[in-house]
């Protein structure tokens, strides 16, 4: 090959190598740019989601949230959007993994003698729920209820014939003060129907940590009410003191919700200021 020919060949090799570098550079830039845009969008969904929950928590209510389809995971402390952005979520929530653009929210008060918290139930709005008749009255209209267990994505029943561990749906068996997640066999005691709805909206892991969180909140509020009792018993008539002591004991020893409530309600019958 003559020298001129070698020069032309070298030029082409040089152009190809330089071209590959430029192309890789632009492709790398494009991929990174798309990653940033996705992260920005996930962050925005996360913030919207978090603020939506905070906005709802002031009162009992329900609402729906629409966005392009996205995936939400919750690990009891953070929500994770599309497996990317994590946002701390320091509120009591019942939910499990959601992969949808239409999400429903339901805020329900949890009482154990007194208001403990307003808990947020979150689910895919397209999910169909079957509840036994006795549990249907409290459910808000944005939740899709079906009358037959065979059409449901989630079945909550006290009838063992309706929860037969079908793989394509989630089943919750309610029996003798016990909630059982049929899929993994986890069982939990419950003292309020509120937790039956919690089980329908969450998995056993989330259910347990939300139940624990509510227990912690109950303990904090009990302490606050015991302080209030000390203040009130010193400012009310002496005849109120035994009644306040009864309520203090009910709170100190975490008696049942009914006992706590009746000890409080009893105060008004004797002209004493109620605690909650």
């Amino acid at each position, binding site marked *: 090959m003559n020298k001129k020919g070698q020069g032309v060949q070298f030029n082409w090799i040089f152009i190809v190598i330089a071209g590959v570098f430029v192309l890789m550079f632009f492709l790398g830039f494009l991929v990174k740019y798309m990653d940033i845009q996705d992260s920005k969008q996930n962050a925005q969904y996360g913030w919207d989601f978090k603020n939506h929950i905070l906005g709802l928590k002031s009162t009992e209510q329900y609402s729906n949230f629409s966005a392009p389809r996205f995936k939400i995971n919750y690990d009891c402390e953070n929500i994770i959007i599309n497996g990317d952005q994590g946002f701390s979520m320091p509120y009591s929530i019942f939910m499990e993994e959601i992969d949808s653009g239409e999400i429903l929210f339901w805020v329900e008060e949890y009482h154990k003698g*007194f208001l*403990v*918290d307003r808990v947020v139930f979150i689910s895919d709005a397209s999910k169909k729920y079957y509840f036994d008749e006795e549990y249907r009255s409290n459910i808000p209209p944005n939740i899709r209820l079906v009358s037959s267990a065979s059409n449901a994505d989630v079945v909550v029943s006290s009838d063992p014939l309706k929860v037969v561990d079908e793989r394509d749906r989630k089943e919750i068996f309610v029996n003798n003060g016990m909630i059982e997640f049929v899929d993994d066999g986890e069982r939990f005691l419950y003292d309020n129907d509120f937790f039956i709805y919690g089980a329908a909206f969450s998995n056993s892991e989330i259910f347990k940590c939300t139940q624990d969180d509510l227990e*912690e909140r109950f303990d904090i509020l009990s302490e*606050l009410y015991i302080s209030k009792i000390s*203040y009130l018993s010193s400012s009310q008539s002496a005849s109120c003191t035994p009644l306040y002591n009864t309520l203090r004991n009910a709170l100190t020893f975490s008696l049942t919700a009914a006992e706590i409530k009746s000890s409080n309600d009893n105060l008004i019958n004797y002209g004493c200021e*109620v605690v909650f």
Partner: protein
Amino acid sequence: MKRGQLQIQESIFVLFVFFIILVIGMVVFYQMEFRSIERMRKENEDVTFYYLISYVPAMPEVVCSEKGIVEECIDLVKARAFASYDNDYYRKIFGNRKIILNADGEKIELYDFEPSKYSAERIISTPVSVYNPRDKSYTIGKLEVHDYEN
């Protein structure tokens, strides 16, 4: 030096300058992107901050209730008890903020986590109805939420 070699060196130099300009452009672009992400974070934190002013008076820790039924006011005795309660539980909810209730000439710090260093402080406030169970009276109080920016 031969003419061909000179041409190649010139081309390499042009490519080098081209890449330098490209890198500068990318750095500027990413900085703008990160600024826009930071702006977005701040805007959303603002929304959270404004939501708190309606969330705090409705919290079970301070809200009035009678026989389990919640009323739209703050219970002064509960607020005092809550102020003296030191628990990390609320740190994850309120973060670097301070929440003050001014009622009956009294200043009650419901929550206080003022960082040692901050660049700015913002305050929002709202009037609230305050109930004193001692004499069963209602007064108008002011609830303040202080937000500290780093």
